[in-house]
């Protein structure tokens, strides 16, 4: 026997649809439709000629995707992006976890202040921050080289040396993002029941052992979540290299999204650009599926 409210809500789907209508229509028209359109465009050679004259548009099937395979710049961008993700994600996650553990310690009061310091990079505008870091990295006038000179390290051209450019971007990116994951980890830590730790204390476990056998396993779902959103986000990196290095030197910091932007909005090879976007999507999709599968197999 349904309660009055259950009956009410079941019979009142009209109201539900009305409530949903604005948001869903907006999402449909301005998100799903463009995704579909991008998919279609990736099968054409939409470019600058097409902008001036529609009749020059040709349907080229999988040609753009085939071209991608043959495109050394695409592979370079892919390599750079993977380098970035594989280096930055674990680093960021490790640092945010450590920070969360520290801040969660019962020995500390005034957590708010330290949390503020760690979190400030997260809320600030990326462009503004990238500009500041660009000057910090200046080979001659930047404070990073200055500080390093005190420990006897010669000036490094952080953004101009092909070997150091990506590490520089990784460092800045980790600095900017670790606060966000730290908060998520703190939430996860607070959900671990106290009794587990008390039991471990009784058995005489020390700090490290507690972390290894209680904290980390209990944090597993949170860690998975953090890893997922961090990886997905990092695959899409654009603004940092755009502002700091424009993809150079020697295309060593060119990322997939940047390449997509260049092809689409600088050279106006829009069909090609759309195919790059979809390849990115497929990569992220596969990566997400893999991570979920790994987690499932562990359970």
């Amino acid at each position, binding site marked *: 026997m349904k309660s009055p409210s259950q009956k009410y809500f079941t019979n009142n789907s009209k109201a539900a649809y009305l409530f*949903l209508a604005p948001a869903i229509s907006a999402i449909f028209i301005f998100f799903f439709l463009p995704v579909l359109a991008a998919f279609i465009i990736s099968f054409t050679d939409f470019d600058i000629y097409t902008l001036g004259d529609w009749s020059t548009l040709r349907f080229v099937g999988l040609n753009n995707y085939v071209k991608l395979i043959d495109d050394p710049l695409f592979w370079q961008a892919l390599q750079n992006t993977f380098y970035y993700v594989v280096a930055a994600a674990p680093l960021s996650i490790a640092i945010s976890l450590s920070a969360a553990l520290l801040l969660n310690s019962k020995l500390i009061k005034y957590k708010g202040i330290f949390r503020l310091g760690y979190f400030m990079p997260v809320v600030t505008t990326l462009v503004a921050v990238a500009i500041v870091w660009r000057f910090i990295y200046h080979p001659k006038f930047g404070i990073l080289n200055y500080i390093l000179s005190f420990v006897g390290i010669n000036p490094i051209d952080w953004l101009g040396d092909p070997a150091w450019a990506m590490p520089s971007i990784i460092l800045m990116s980790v600095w900017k993002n670790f606060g966000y994951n730290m908060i998520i980890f703190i939430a996860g830590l607070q959900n671990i029941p106290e009794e587990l730790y008390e039991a471990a204390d009784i058995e005489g476990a020390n700090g490290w052992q507690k972390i290894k056998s209680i904290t980390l396993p209990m944090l597993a779902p949170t860690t998975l979540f953090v890893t997922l959103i961090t990886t997905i986000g990092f695959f899409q990196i654009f603004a940092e290299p755009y502002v700091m290095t424009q993809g150079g030197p020697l295309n060593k910091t060119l990322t997939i999204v940047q390449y997509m932007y260049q092809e689409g909005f600088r050279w106006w090879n829009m069909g090609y650009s759309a195919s790059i976007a979809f390849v990115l999507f497929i990569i992220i999709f596969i990566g997400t599926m893999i991570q979920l599968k790994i987690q499932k197999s562990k359970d």
Partner: protein
Amino acid sequence: MKRILLYTFLGITSFITILPFLWMVSASLMNDGEASVFPPVFIPDYATLIQFQTLFVRLNAAQNFLNSLLLSTIVTLLSLFFNSMAGYAFAKYRFAGKNSLFNLLLTSMIIPSQVTMLPLFLLLKYLGFINTYMAIVIPGLANIFGIFLIRQYCLSIPDSLIEAAKIDGAGDFEIYQKIILPLAVPILVTLAIFTFLGTWNDFLWPLIVLTDNSMYTLPVALANLMGEHTKDPELMMAGSLVTIIPVIIVFLVLQKYYIKGIMMGSVKE
């Protein structure tokens, strides 16, 4: 003893974390050329506001600031409206296709937004909205994360309240307006902060759709400035500061909600 070590470590690391900001503030108060010296200076000889003067008087930063402020506010208010209605519907109503629709929305969060940029640009061009506020407002009208957060929150609103209102003869929209919204204020504030910050900080999309200097938001104007004044770090730092300050103020005042929101977004149902 352990406590002292911990405090020291925390103190040093958080200081290092905010060090770039400190340098930014310091350099923005320097005169032209003062920051491009070796060895680098950390404190200006004479603090001056001349960079800010240049920004606002010569470079029209006030217009950019206004654009950012108006756009962030409009998008926040509108999207709160749209998202809250949808979130409420998903939480409290039963209708055909509810679960499939919701799951579709969730999984589509994987799609990188860059995929949509080109067609969206063309669509907006045909609507005549390029280089207007609409180009920024329209894609921001609703977002899946917001709907998800609100639904999450609304699930915990007791059905009995709604039942009681219905017995009193209240219509659907009245229930939404008078009962749900007031109860949802915490999550609304959280979402408002997310949206405001997100819109304020947005860079790539405004870069693409805004072509007039007078329409630029602060991040775009800043990147523009970077393209021209690479040799003027002091000016760039002042610009960065102006861009970041509102965001930091919003965060400082409302951080409780913001952080709670992140936590809520991460907890599985």
